[in-house]
């Protein structure tokens, strides 16, 4: 069975600095997607970025980028120029052959002004 592990329950960063959130996963599948979702205090889960396993190039979305290491089964999220609005829970998720999302436990990101 697939698993997703986020080893950092909480991270903090100074506003305007860069922070990296870690995510590792375990799977025997070769074709899958990985996601980072953000959950602000409003509770609505918002897609931040996604990566297809077959694509070697790391996905980027403005200040958000990933470091996808397929062999190491690692999928970290880098947030550059952190802003107060980035404060949220961040969840790493995996989608494999059965369309169910497998979720990590989440990392709470605190932005210090």
């Amino acid at each position, binding site marked *: 069975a697939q698993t*997703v592990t986020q080893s950092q329950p909480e991270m903090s960063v100074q506003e305007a600095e860069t922070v990296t959130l870690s995510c590792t996963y375990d799977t025997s599948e070769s*074709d*899958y*997607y990985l996601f980072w*979702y953000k959950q602000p205090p*409003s*509770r*609505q*889960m*918002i*897609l931040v970025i*996604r990566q*297809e396993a077959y694509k070697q190039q790391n996905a980027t979305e403005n200040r958000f980028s990933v470091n996808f290491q397929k062999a190491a089964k690692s999928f970290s999220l880098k947030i550059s120029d952190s802003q107060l609005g980035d404060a949220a829970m961040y*969840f790493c998720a995996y*989608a*494999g*052959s*059965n*369309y*169910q*999302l*497998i*979720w*990590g*436990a*989440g990392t709470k990101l605190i932005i210090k002004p």
Partner: protein
Amino acid sequence: EAGVTQFPSHSVIEKGQTVTLRCDPISGHDNLYWYRRVMGKEIKFLLHFVKESKQDESGMPNNRFLAERTGGTYSTLKVQPAELEDSGVYFCASSQGLQRGEKLFFGSGTQLSVL
């Protein structure tokens, strides 16, 4: 464009009572998913509808949970009778297509507290 709507946003009930959660997906989205996060644990898949049909209900914990999606529009998730361990946040999500990389649109969830 209206997003995914869930209500109630909060529900507090006593053990043994019945609660019905509702999800209105984005119009035109055939795929509707239910997930839940029990306190302190990972978010878990419950089930997936394609239109009005249950595509995958492997995550439903037991027969106290009943999900419906009549007419392929909104969905309800009924818990009867509720137990203490059912407390958590229940999320609904919808998508137009059915691909692994499909973006899911989530509602704000229903916080269920069973006392």
